[in-house]
């Protein structure tokens, strides 16, 4: 029963996330569907990031891949180094001028 209720609340919130921008845009004819879609995507991505952070907090066991804690003081020595310029590449991109302004 409790799970069903939580599931229902979840569904309602997701529906709200998708319909709030649409409802808000309803009274403004200038707002296009592209903007509504962007708002919905941004909110879902933000929710995904927050939940990923919360999920990662539950995981604390991982294999070590580095040994930085065991470096001896002054133990890093560079024997040979060079930085050689090889070539240059040039790219040109036409910038759209904003005619609405």
């Amino acid at each position, binding site marked *: 029963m409790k799970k069903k209720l*939580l*599931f229902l609340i*979840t569904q309602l*919130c*997701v529906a*709200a*996330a998708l319909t*709030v*921008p649409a409802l*808000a*845009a309803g*009274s*403004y004819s200038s707002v296009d569907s592209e*903007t509504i879609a962007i*708002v919905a995507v*941004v*909110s*879902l991505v933000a*929710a*995904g990031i*927050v*939940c990923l952070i*919360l*999920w990662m*907090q*539950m*995981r*604390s*066991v*991982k*294999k*070590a*891949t*580095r*040994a*930085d*804690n*065991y*470096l*001896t003081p002054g*133990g*890093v*020595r*560079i*024997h*040979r*180094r*060079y*930085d*050689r*310029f090889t*070539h*240059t*590449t*040039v*790219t*040109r*991109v*036409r*910038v759209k001028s904003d005619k609405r302004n």
Partner: protein
Amino acid sequence: MAVEITNYKCPCCTAPLHYSGESGKLECDYCESNYTVEEVEKLYAEKEAAARDAAEKREKSADDGGWGADAEHMRAYSCPDCGAELICDETTAATSCPYCGNPTIVPGQFTGMLRPDYVIPFRLEKEAAVAALKAHYKRKLLLPRSFRDSNHLEEIKGVYVPFWLYDGVADAKVNYHATRAHSHMEGDYRVTVTEHYDVYREGSVTFERIPADGSSKMPDDYMDSIEPYDYSELKPFSTAYLPGYLADKYDVSAEECAARADERAGNSAVACMTETVVGYHTKTIDGQSVFVQRNAAKYALMPVWLLSTRWKGKNFLFAMNGQTGKLVGDLPVSWPKFFAWFAGVAAGVAAVISLFLFM
């Protein structure tokens, strides 16, 4: 098959002594006497040698007693206090008698090649491990309420885990492709000029005591996660630190564990070389070669508290560094909570953006 085992007894009242991490001494719970490790070592040096000889003699003359192939991996010991026969795995070096609770050490398990070079004694007691686990549950928004409320620890044990410590030098040769870019406007065009560089770094990085656990029973990722230990507290090995805790001897050789240490040393060496490549907007590794030279590995026992619990038929293991108190262990996720958070955040963000855009 049974061999003698040793427990350190209080010279005043003959009750068992146990090592206390807090005081750094062996303590008697009954008469409250306490002794330094050196005092106890001196008292027991002769007794241990005699017990070891007896153990070797008995082992040589022992048959498998009907255990068949399993006998190869089992050892039987007699508790010196109550006489009970304890059967445990061949890698167990310190344990406690399940009948009388005496902390006991198996002589012969830490002799010759098997004798550890170092030990880090337990500094934190069982209560600290339980408190750390409770703290681990805090601020975990996706933790199921029933796990937090109805969760009872099934087992808490302090174990000295065998570790190999590797010293060595990692030689790294790394090639990078690096770029620097500048942009400017030319009429309606944005022009980006990118300078490309061939970058090379060759160097060596020295490491000291990279640890790798030498016990097949201990999950490697747990042992990696509770690092680092404070090596300033490494002490020459003595069995006097073991009473009151379990101890294992290694069953994975230094050569077998070396690959793990080499991989870590190599990755860190490459990272050290990469840190010296500065002044570029991008840098990518084109090629690398790493060679790790190792000295002879040292054998050490490290203190670990292992806490296990069961929830909905599944085992959850937590490990705590017995010296620093760092505790790790994966927790279950409540999926209803996960989706509730997802929906709540999505609705909230959508509402806020809509307010700014459309109101």
